């Protein structure tokens, strides 16, 4: 058990800190959350900056421990998030790298690394949420094309994406996991309609994507026809537990800010609230240690589901505590800090598999309990 950086890790960290201190002050101002073209340009620009400085591939080539240092240090320094590059860098890209042909890799990977193209994800459907393999968007072969019809939901950055990693059903008669195919769909193809989806937090973070007889070349298929489920699963464990490194760092900072705010407004004198914040400190320290534990594991283990279950709950508890610190009516005022975050945090126990489904996965796959009903 060793929590210190190796000499190589320490050197990476030191050089990164030095570079961030120089690079961040010259960044342009952040665009408003509703300015999609502005956000696209900003996020791509940041990726280009990383690429030019030699950090473009840190999500791909680097050891998990090095990636963790990158995410920790960029968050601490207040650097931009991965933003619009998320799917390209963390999902579609690694999928293509693992399962694509040489031509496919040459076509799609460099523009992602250089911050030139944005990808979005067309996985979830209105009737295929936690049960993703129940997806029904249909693709039939017509010459050198697939003709795709159906609808996707919860697609981030669809408004500004160049490509969509799309899961379609190519064999409706096969068992549900065996009739799925992975396609790269150009977002400017005729027949695609993108409709923003307003969340309960008021933001247009997601979109619905409607597909009406969209033609996607067969050459855009990654992996074999009907092998798309396996192709997708290959990269789901790709990030190896580093997905939430930045967020845990940020939550710990917020927790410190809550303590200071509570001292400022006198609520710190309430031992119930004070101890609640102390308990959250334990929670996020443990989540940080669990991240380090998972990152050090040589094979992706049970850590991912365990982490997600605990973290999603802890994040919601953090912003519940924030409401206590703010008091009334500040806790109900959208202009106050943390109030929007409290709303956004509600998605965490739902997105990427609800906590209920995650519990079932842990029970069946990790603990070996019989299949539930």
């Amino acid at each position: 058990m060793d929590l210190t950086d190796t000499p190589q890790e320490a050197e990476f960290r030191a050089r990164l800190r030095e570079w961030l201190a120089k690079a961040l002050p010259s960044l342009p101002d952040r665009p408003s959350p509703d300015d999609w073209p502005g956000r696209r340009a900003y996020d791509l620009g940041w990726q280009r900056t990383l690429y030019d400085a030699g950090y473009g591939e840190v999500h791909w080539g680097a050891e998990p421990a090095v990636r963790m240092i990158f995410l920790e240090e960029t968050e601490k320094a207040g650097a931009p998030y991965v933003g619009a590059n998320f799917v390209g860098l963390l999902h579609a890209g690694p999928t293509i790298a693992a399962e694509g042909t040489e031509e496919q890799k040459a076509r799609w990977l460099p523009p992602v690394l250089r911050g030139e193209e944005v990808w979005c994800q067309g996985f979830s459907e209105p009737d295929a949420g936690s049960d993703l393999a129940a997806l029904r968007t249909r693709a039939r072969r017509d010459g050198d094309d697939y003709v795709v019809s159906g609808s996707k939901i919860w697609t981030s950055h669809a408004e500004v994406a160049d490509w969509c990693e799309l899961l379609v059903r190519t064999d409706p008669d096969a068992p549900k996991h065996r009739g799925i195919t992975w396609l790269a769909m150009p977002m400017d193809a005729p027949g695609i309609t993108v409709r923003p989806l307003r969340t309960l937090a008021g933001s247009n973070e997601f979109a619905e994507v409607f597909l009406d007889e969209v033609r996607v070349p067969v050459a855009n298929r990654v992996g074999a026809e009907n092998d798309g489920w396996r192709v997708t699963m290959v990269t789901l464990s790709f990030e190896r537990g580093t997905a939430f490194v930045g967020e845990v760092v940020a939550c710990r900072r917020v927790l410190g800010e809550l303590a200071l705010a509570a001292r400022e407004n006198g609520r710190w004198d309430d031992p119930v609230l004070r101890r609640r914040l102390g308990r959250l400190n334990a929670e996020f320290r443990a989540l940080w240690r669990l991240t380090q534990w998972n990152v050090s594991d040589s094979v992706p283990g049970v850590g991912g589901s365990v982490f997600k279950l605990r973290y999603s709950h802890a994040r919601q508890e953090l912003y519940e505590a924030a409401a206590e610190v703010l008091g009334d009516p500040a806790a109900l005022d959208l202009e106050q800090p943390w109030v929007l975050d409290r709303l956004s945090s509600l998605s965490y126990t739902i997105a990427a598999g609800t906590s209920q489904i995650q519990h079932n996965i842990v029970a069946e796959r990790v603990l070996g309990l019989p299949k539930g009903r």
Partner: protein
Amino acid sequence: MRFQLTEDQRALRTGVRELLTARFGRERLRAAMADAPALDRDLWRELGDAGFFALRLPEAAGGVGLGLPEAVLAFEEAGRVLLPGPLIATQLAAGTVPGAATGETVVTDVDTGGTVEWLAAADVVRGDAEGAVSVRSVDPLTPLHRVPVQDSGAAVDVPLKSLLTAAEQLGTGARVVELAVEHARTREQFGRPIGAFQAVQQLCAGMLVRVEVARAVVYAAAVTGDPADIAAARLLADEAAVHGARDCLQVHGGMGFTWESDVHLYLKRAWVRARRPGSVTECEELLAAGLLAEAG
């Protein structure tokens, strides 16, 4: 950063587990209930021979020369099998109290709250046990005394004892998940194993999550020795053991409510350990104060 266990640490864990499985199985556990308040001194000396008490003592002083992470792994194993006796007090006394390191001498201490475990069985008591009164202990495997004078045990290293307590709780928490899962797989109702019911699955999965999150912070606290990490470790390990044992009892249904089942022994021991100094309130206050200190 290589947080996972080293080869040597894995070997140590396996060694301790094999020793305890061979020497302190279920029959010995039930027999120990009849022996209490006396301790199995042969087993105690065997633990001494195996280096359990001298684990952290330098080799020059006749010890094993290992560190806190190894001690935590050993105490986790002790917690798995509910090994009885003032194990932590005796290990902390190794090198100071003659015979403690070898298992010849059983050492207990008066904790800062005025509680003494295993007073009658101990050869040496650290702290002032004058006027100790016997308590009818809830745990049949932890005889308890109460000392009227407070703070009589201030000499004890509270954070260290709290960390090793957390390690024992972690072992108990991990073991009760296994017991619950074994039962849920085999016990049938309505024509199927009860583990096929999602409500039971959710209980078991929740237990595992608490254990694995606690494990990360207990091990980290053993590496850093940081008081805030130790406080976090203790809070989460107490929760993993106490809440886990209660859920394990629930999964066992009526059988879990019997004396014959072992489940109550895990819960009762977890309760006893959770009352040791470094309790919930102290840990939460320490961690709260830490937030202000860190945020400036």
